[in-house]
């Protein structure tokens, strides 16, 4: 029973990592951009939700509805004014720029909100749980996981069922030919980053309600996200969910053996998967 419990907790934790990773996966899949500031952008979104909730007195789950469009706009501007300028055949400039952005966001948050750790308070729901007989699951982890599945499903629908998704895929295949179809790659990229920031805001909601956060924890979230994307296979959204679950499971199993092993186990699982399947679990055929 304890083992089933561990597996269930690990899988649900994987949902959180998948949420961290989904935006990263989307942006990488469309513009081959590795956004090193992704973790910090999630933390930025967490502070934004916190600010909205504090100023308006709204519950974090409601505040996120205000924060998400703001983050979309921020992502759009970030792409059009900064990232589009450095995207090209050379992968180094975008890496450097997003690394710089990561530092800027951390320091900006530090000087605005100090290094004190913060939390989004969601009230009684935080401690609520559901008893399924075999296992008892926290409502928050279940919500997190459900949101992750929903987000991945929605992104997949967008990708494969809409005209915008078609434009995403065409631009990712061949930006020059896409332009001959009347597609503006720079706008497509801005849209993608905007959407990635909405997903980052959803991730921030669960990050901030489930644990403390401070301006410095972004890079560690980036690492989990990065591992989830790579385990799943670059550019595959369901793969990213699977990758998140793999890390979550590994961490839960590791922690059940020895609590100190939690983080390490996740990283070991990452290395093991790469040893067995260097291109991840669900690599895209044409990469």
């Amino acid at each position, binding site marked *: 029973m304890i083992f089933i419990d561990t597996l269930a907790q690990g899988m649900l934790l994987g949902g959180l990592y998948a949420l961290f990773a989904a935006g990263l996966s989307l942006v990488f899949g469309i513009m081959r951009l590795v956004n090193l500031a992704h973790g910090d952008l999630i933390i930025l979104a967490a502070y934004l939700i916190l600010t909205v909730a504090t100023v308006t007195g709204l519950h974090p789950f409601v505040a996120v509805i205000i924060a998400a469009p703001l983050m979309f706009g921020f992502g759009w501007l970030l792409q059009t004014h900064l990232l589009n300028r450095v995207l090209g055949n050379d992968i180094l400039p975008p890496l450097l720029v997003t690394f710089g952005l990561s530092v800027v966001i951390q320091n900006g948050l530090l000087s605005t909100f100090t290094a004190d750790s913060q939390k989004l308070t969601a009230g009684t729901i935080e401690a609520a749980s559901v008893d399924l007989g075999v296992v008892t699951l926290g409502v928050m982890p279940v919500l997190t996981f459900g949101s992750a599945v929903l987000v991945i499903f929605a992104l997949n629908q967008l990708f494969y069922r809409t005209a915008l998704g*078609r434009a995403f895929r065409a631009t*990712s*295949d061949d930006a020059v030919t896409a332009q*001959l*179809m009347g*597609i503006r790659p720079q706008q497509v990229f801005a849209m993608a980053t905007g959407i990635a920031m909405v997903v980052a805001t959803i991730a921030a909601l669960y990050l901030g309600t489930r644990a403390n956060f401070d301006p410095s924890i972004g890079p560690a979230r980036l690492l989990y996200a990065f591992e989830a994307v790579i385990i799943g296979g670059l550019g595959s959204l369901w793969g990213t969910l699977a990758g998140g679950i793999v890390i979550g499971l590994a961490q839960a199993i590791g922690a059940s053996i020895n609590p100190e092993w939690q983080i390490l186990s996740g990283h070991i699982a990452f290395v093991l998967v790469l040893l067995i399947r260097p291109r991840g679990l669900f690599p895209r055929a044409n990469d």
Partner: protein
Amino acid sequence: MSALLQIAGLTAHYGDFQALFGVDLTLDQGQTVAIIGANGAGKTTLMRAITGVAKVTAGSVTLAGKDITRIPAPDILTHGISMVPEGRKLFPSLTVEENLLIGAHARRGNGFWTLERIQTLFPILKERRHSPGTALSGGQQQMVAIGRALMSNPQVLLCDELSLGLAPVVIKEIYGAFPQIKDSGTSIIVVEQDISQALRVADHVHCMMEGRITLSGRPTELSRDAIHDAYFGVNHA
């Protein structure tokens, strides 16, 4: 008749390398114009210069009286020019049907060509609509590329080397669609290395060499010898 597409003194560069030297060309409404020329003559560059993909350094492109020189590539389609690029360039992540639909991405309003009409023109594209575009044979891929370009209902259709790498019977099938394309009101520029195919389909033929048009005329006016000379540069060597 005033020209639909007027190209005057068009010059284009790749960095310091000059690929086009003052090209003049006229396409009238309803006409099909062919451009022939050996490898490296600048045919593709001319297509890319018209569509804003290659850098135009001098000269002008005028469509129905409107100056469209140096308009960015994504805007060219809404101005009424659409291209079947060299090498077909289908999107590998898109199915056959999605490749067609994306051709209408920037389309405004209605026109003759719809998904159904393209699928009637090339029935195989309906049969294979859920296959990845790049899983098709070369000839079928060329049909997708033509259909994709038609989906925007262009005034001018630019076709770059439709026959490249295709068997004669397939080439014939593809050019068999031209009468219907012309009937839909689209004027056509074809780039061809297959000279006899060009002479068959075109109202007017231009031969290019080293970035210049070296010979122009109606197919009936041009002698084989003159074409041969212009193509291989006997008078220019």
